[in-house]
C-alpha cells in the first residue's frame, strides 16, 4: 500500500537511462582515422569490459530512479519492523479547554477534523476503529468493525445486509456523531482512558496491536507534574503497561491540535462568605478572577445576577455590577466582593459573569444560595424547669434569641421528651444540655442528623452519665449499632478544682473572629469551677483549654466521620466523602461546662451570647455548599427510600446549546454525574407526590478551575516526559494521517531516499572509475 500510489507511474522513468543510452549512441561525430588496426584491436579486447561497465552503470542509474520514485510514492510496510495495526482507537479530547479559540479557529473543530481523517483513513484501510471521548472514556462515540464498502449507503434495513454494508452504516453513523459531538465541561481524563485500554488489552484472548490516537491540546496540567516530569497518574499506568508486557500492544500517536499556549482569564471562585445565609442579613458575595495568560488582563468588568427563588428557570431579578478590575497580572487572582441582602428565605440561583474572552464558558460561574429566615436550633434540656433561668437551657435560649418572637437570626425550639428525627427535621443544629444519657433511638436520630450535616453541641453538667457518654464516644464498630462517634472525647470525672479561666490560645478558631485582635483575652474574667477531664478522640481538636495544671480541654470540636472512631493519619488527605461531610458540616462540639451557671459564671458574661451565636452559625448545616458541585462529580442528593430525582439540565448556558444534557431520572442507589456546568433543577419525586407537586431545588455545577489554564505542554517537554515510559509513540502537530503513518512505517521512504543517495554515489564512483566524464 502506498501513500501516493499515483506517483508509481513514475517507475516508467526507470527506463530513462536505457533510452538515453540508446539515444546517445545515435549522437556522434565522424572522424577519419588511419590507425584502424590499433583501434579495432583495442576494441576487441575492450568490448566485454565496456559492456559490463555499461550494464553496471545502467543498473545503478535505474536503481536510483526506482528508489526515488518509490520514496515519493511512500510505501506502507505494514507488519514490518514490528509495526502493525489491528485496531485503531481515536480518543478525541472533548474537555472544556478545547473550546478555546485560537488564531486558526476553535481548537475542538481542528481536533474534530483530525479525528474524522483518522477514522476515514482507518475505514479506508479496513482497520476496525472506535472513537472515545477523552473527558468521558466510558462513553463510546461509535465503532466500526470489519470491511467497509465504498460509497454511501442510504436507507434500507440492516437486516440481511452484508457485513460491509453494516460496516458502512456504522462508519457513517460514527462520522455523523463526530461532526455532532461537542465539548464537555470536564477535564481530559487520559488516566481513565489508559486504564480502560489496559483492561481491554489484558482481557484480549489473542495479542492485538492497537493504535491509540489522542487528538488533544496537550495542556501542561493534564500531562506534567510541577517539576516537568510525567504526572504520577499517567506514570503509574505506563509502568503497568510495561510491567504487564503490553508495550508491543500499543502504538500511541499524540496529535497536538493546539496553537500553543493561549491566554485566558476565568472566574475561578464564586462564593457567599456568609454561611448559612440568613434573610435580611447582608451577605458578602465574592468573585475571584484569575489571569492564566502571559500578558496582563486589563479592565475586567462583570456582574452578578441573582435569580428568583420562585421560578423553575433562571430569571435574573437583581443585577449587581462587580467592581471593575483595572488589571490582573499574569498568574494573579483578583478577588472582588459585593454585598447583597436576600429579603426572604428561599433558594436563589446566582450567576457571575465577566467580559468574555477566547474561552467564553469560563467567564461565567454559578452558585446557589439557600437562604434561611433564621438558623434553627433545637435545645435538649437535660434538667428542664418551669423557671426559665433554673433550667439548663434558659440562659442559652436568652443568649441565642433574647426576644423570642423578634427575629434575631436564630430560632430556638425546645425539644421536649425524646429526641427523634422529626424533632430534628428542620433543625440546623442541636444543643444537648446536661442530658444524662441518650437512648439508642436518640443516638440513631442524632446520627442521621449529623450525617446529613446537622451540628451537635454538648454542654455537660452533674447529670452526665459517664458510662453512657463513653458509649457515645466508642460505639460498636460492627453490627446494627455501628456508627461514627457521637461524642468526640473520652469523659472522666475529676475532683473539683480551683477557679479557672478559659484559654482559647491564638484565638484562631472561626468562632472567635469577633474577638480577634483584642488586647486582653476576653475570657480572663470568666471563672469556671468544675469540669470533666476530656480526652479528645483521634481527629478531634481542642479549641480551648482551662488554665489548670493539666491544661484540661475546655472546648473540643469533632466531626461526625464515616470512619468509626478513626481519624486520618498525619499527612493523609481526607477522603472526598470526609470532605463532603465537613463541607455540609456534621460538626460536633463539646463544652466542658454547663450551659447555666452551675459550674461557672460564663452564661452571664457578655462573651457568652456572642460566642454561642457564633457557635450556632458554625455548627449549622450548610445548605448552600451541598448545592455546589463540580462537573464530573455526583450531585449531592440525599438518598431517601421511595424518592427519585428528576434532573433538568441547564437551559440557558452556552454549553447546553451545543451539547444539551437530557433530562434524567435517578432513583435510590443511583447517582448522576453531569458533564456540563450550569444551574440544574432537581425535582424530588415520590410515589405519593406527583410531578406537579414535587419539590425542586437548584444545584450549581461548576467546572474545575484548572481547566481554564491553557498553558501547553510543549512537544519537547512531553517527548522528554514520555521517553522513560518505554511505550511506542509519535508526537506531532495537527497533521494528517500520512505523517503518522510515515513515522509508524519506520520512515521507510527516508530509507529509500537514502538508498537512492547511496546508489548515486556508487554511480558517480563507478563512472569515474570506468574513466567516464562525470
Amino acid at each position: 500500500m502506498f501513500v501516493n500510489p499515483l506517483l508509481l507511474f513514475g517507475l516508467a522513468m526507470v527506463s530513462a537511462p536505457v533510452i538515453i543510452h540508446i539515444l546517445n549512441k545515435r549522437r556522434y561525430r565522424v572522424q577519419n582515422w588511419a590507425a584502424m588496426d590499433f583501434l579495432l584491436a583495442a576494441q576487441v579486447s575492450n568490448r566485454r569490459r565496456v559492456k559490463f561497465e555499461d550494464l553496471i552503470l545502467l543498473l545503478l542509474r535505474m536503481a536510483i530512479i526506482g528508489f526515488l520514485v518509490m520514496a515519493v510514492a511512500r510505501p506502507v510496510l505494514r507488519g514490518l519492523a514490528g509495526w502493525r495495526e489491528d485496531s485503531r482507537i481515536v480518543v478525541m479530547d472533548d474537555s472544556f479547554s478545547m473550546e478555546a479559540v485560537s488564531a486558526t479557529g476553535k481548537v475542538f473543530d481542528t481536533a474534530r477534523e483530525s479525528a474524522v481523517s483518522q477514522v476515514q483513513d482507518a475505514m479506508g484501510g479496513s482497520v476496525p476503529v472506535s472513537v472515545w471521548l477523552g473527558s468521558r472514556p466510558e462513553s463510546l462515540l461509535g465503532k466500526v468493525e470489519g470491511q467497509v464498502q465504498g460509497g454511501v449507503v442510504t436507507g434500507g434495513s440492516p437486516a440481511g445486509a452484508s457485513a460491509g454494508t453494516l460496516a458502512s452504516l456504522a462508519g457513517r453513523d460514527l462520522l455523523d456523531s463526530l461532526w455532532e459531538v461537542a465539548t464537555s465541561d470536564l477535564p481530559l481524563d487520559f488516566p481513565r482512558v489508559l486504564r480502560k485500554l489496559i483492561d481491554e488489552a489484558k482481557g484480549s484472548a489473542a495479542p492485538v496491536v492497537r493504535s491509540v490516537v489522542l487528538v488533544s491540546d496537550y495542556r501542561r496540567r493534564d500531562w506534567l507534574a510541577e517539576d516537568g516530569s510525567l504526572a504520577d497518574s499517567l506514570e503509574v499506568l505506563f509502568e503497568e503497561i510495561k510491567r504487564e508486557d503490553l508495550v508491543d500492544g500499543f502504538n500511541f500517536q499524540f496529535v497536538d491540535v493546539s496553537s500553543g499556549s493561549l491566554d485566558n482569564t476565568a472566574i475561578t471562585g464564586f462564593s457567599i462568605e456568609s454561611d448559612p445565609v440568613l434573610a435580611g442579613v447582608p451577605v458578602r458575595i465574592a468573585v475571584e478572577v484569575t489571569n492564566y495568560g502571559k500578558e496582563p488582563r486589563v479592565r475586567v468588568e462583570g456582574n452578578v445576577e441573582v435569580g428568583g427563588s420562585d421560578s423553575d428557570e433562571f430569571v435574573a431579578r437583581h443585577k449587581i455590577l462587580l467592581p471593575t478590575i483595572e488589571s490582573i497580572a499574569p498568574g494573579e487572582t483578583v478577588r472582588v466582593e459585593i454585598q447583597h441582602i436576600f429579603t426572604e428565605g428561599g433558594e436563589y440561583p446566582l450567576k457571575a459573569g465577566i467580559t468574555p474572552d477566547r474561552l467564553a464558558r469560563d467567564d461565567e460561574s454559578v452558585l446557589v444560595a439557600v437562604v434561611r429566615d433564621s438558623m434553627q436550633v433545637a435545645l435538649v434540656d437535660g434538667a428542664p424547669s418551669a423557671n426559665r433561668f433554673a433550667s439548663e437551657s434558659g440562659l442559652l435560649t436568652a443568649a441565642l434569641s433574647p426576644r423570642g418572637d423578634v427575629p434575631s437570626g436564630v430560632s430556638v425550639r425546645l425539644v421536649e421528651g425524646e429526641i427523634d428525627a422529626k424533632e430534628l427535621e428542620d433543625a440546623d443544629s442541636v444543643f444537648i444540655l446536661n442530658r444524662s444519657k441518650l437512648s439508642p433511638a436518640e443516638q440513631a436520630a442524632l446520627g442521621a442528623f449529623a450525617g446529613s450535616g446537622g451540628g451537635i453541641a454538648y454542654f455537660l453538667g452533674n447529670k452526665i452519665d459517664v458510662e453512657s457518654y463513653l458509649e457515645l464516644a466508642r460505639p460498636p464498630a460492627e453490627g446494627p449499632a455501628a456508627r461514627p462517634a457521637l461524642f468526640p472525647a473520652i469523659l472522666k470525672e475529676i475532683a473539683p478544682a480551683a477557679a479557672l479561666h478559659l484559654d482559647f490560645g491564638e484565638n484562631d478558631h472561626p468562632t472567635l473572629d469577633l474577638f480577634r485582635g483584642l488586647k486582653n483575652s476576653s475570657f480572663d474574667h470568666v471563672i469556671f469551677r468544675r469540669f470533666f477531664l476530656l480526652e479528645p478522640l483521634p481527629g478531634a481538636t481542642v479549641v480551648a483549654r482551662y488554665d489548670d495544671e493539666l491544661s484540661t480541654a475546655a472546648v473540643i470540636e469533632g466531626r461526625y466521620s464515616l470512619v468509626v472512631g478513626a481519624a486520618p493519619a498525619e499527612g493523609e488527605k481526607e477522603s472526598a466523602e470526609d470532605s463532603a461531610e465537613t463541607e455540609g458540616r456534621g460538626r460536633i462540639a463539646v463544652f466542658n461546662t454547663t450551659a447555666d451557671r452551675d459550674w461557672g459564671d460564663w452564661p452571664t458574661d457578655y462573651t457568652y451570647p456572642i460566642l454561642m451565636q457564633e457557635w450556632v452559625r458554625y455548627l449549622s448545616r450548610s445548605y448552600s455548599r451541598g448545592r455546589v458541585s463540580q462537573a464530573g462529580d455526583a450531585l449531592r442528593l440525599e438518598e431517601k427510600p421511595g424518592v427519585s430525582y428528576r434532573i433538568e439540565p441547564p437551559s440557558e448556558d452556552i454549553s447546553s446549546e451545543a451539547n444539551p444534557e437530557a433530562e434524567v431520572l435517578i432513583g435510590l442507589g443511583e447517582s448522576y454525574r453531569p458533564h456540563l456546568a450550569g444551574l440544574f433543577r432537581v425535582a424530588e419525586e415520590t410515589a405519593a407526590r406527583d410531578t406537579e407537586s414535587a419539590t425542586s431545588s437548584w444545584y450549581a455545577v461548576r467546572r474545575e478551575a484548572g481547566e481554564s489554564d491553557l498553558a501547553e505542554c510543549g512537544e519537547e517537554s512531553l517527548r522528554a516526559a514520555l521517553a522513560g515510559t518505554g511505550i511506542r509513540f509519535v508526537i506531532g502537530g495537527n497533521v494528517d494521517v500520512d505523517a503518522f503513518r510515515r513515522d509508524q512505517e519506520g520512515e521507510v521512504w527516508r530509507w529509500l531516499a537514502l538508498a537512492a543517495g547511496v546508489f548515486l554515489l556508487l554511480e558517480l564512483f563507478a563512472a569515474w572509475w570506468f574513466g567516464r566524464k562525470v
Partner: protein
Amino acid sequence: MKSADGFFDSELIARLSRLELVAKRIVDGFLAGKNKSSRHGFSVEFVEHREYVPGDDLRHLDWKVLGRMDRYYIKRYEEETNITALLVLDASASMTYSSGTLSKFEVGATVAAALGHLLHRQRDAVGLAVHDQHLKEFVPPSAKTLALAAIAARLKGLEPEGKTSMKEVLERVSLQLPRRCLFVLISDFFVSQEEIDATLGFLHYRGHDAVVLQVLDPDEREFPFESNILFKGLEDDRQLLTEPHRLRERYLAVLEGALGHLKKSCEGCGFDYQLITGPETISEALAKLLAQRARRRKAASRKG
C-alpha cells in the same frame, strides 16, 4: 623558414648540415666522399688483416703484428666513397591523416626533402620512391642537382591514396638499384607486423642499410578523443562507433606494442629507427638519427 618550393626548411637544413649522414654498410660509390664503401684503396681506414701473399704492397704490411707473431699480415682498408640513398615515402591513404596544419604525408615529404638535400650536399646520390601499394613515383638516385629538383617536383602535387604495401615496392625498386643502398623508409608503418618484418628482412638480406622514420600524427600518438565518435578507416571501409576515452588506455597499449615491435625489428636488422610525431619533432628526430648513426660509425671504426 621554408624555401620557395615549400619543402626545404632552412632551419632544419642548418641543423643537419653539421652532421654527416654516414652509411653503416659498405655501399659502392663512384665518387670519393666522406662515406665508406666496401672497396678497398688508399686513404681509407683500416678494417681488417689478411695474410701476405707475394705481390702485395709492402707499404701496407702491419709491422707490429710481424713483431709480435713473426707472421706477415697486410692491412685492409675501407675506402670512403659516396652512398646511394633512396628516399622511400609512403603515400598511402593513411598518410593523409592530419590533426593540425600538416598531414603525415606532408611531414614525411618534408623529412624526405630535408634528407635529400643533406645527402646532395654530401655529394651522395639520392633518389626518391613514392608508393602506396604500388610504386607511384620513382626518381633514380643521382648526385646531380637536377635529381634533387626532380625529387622536389615529384613530391609536389602528390595526393596520398590507396593502401600501403612496402615489401613488394621495395623489391621492385631494388632491382633498379645496382648497388647496395641506404633506404630511408618514411611511413606510418600501419601495416601488419609480418609485412614489416618481411620488408626489413628483405633489405637486410640484400645487404642494404636502412633508416626507418616512422611518422605519426599527435592524435594517433595521444588519442585525445572524447564523446561518441564514429571512426572511419582511411584505407578501407572499416569503421567503429565508440566512446574513445573508454578505449584510450587499451589503444595506447596496442600502439606501444606495435611501435616496440617495429623498433625491435629495426634493431634486429641493424637499422636505425626514429619516431616523428608531428612537424615540431622533425628536427629533433633527425638530429637524433644522425647522432645515432655517427655514434655507430665511430663504434665500428674502433673495432678495427
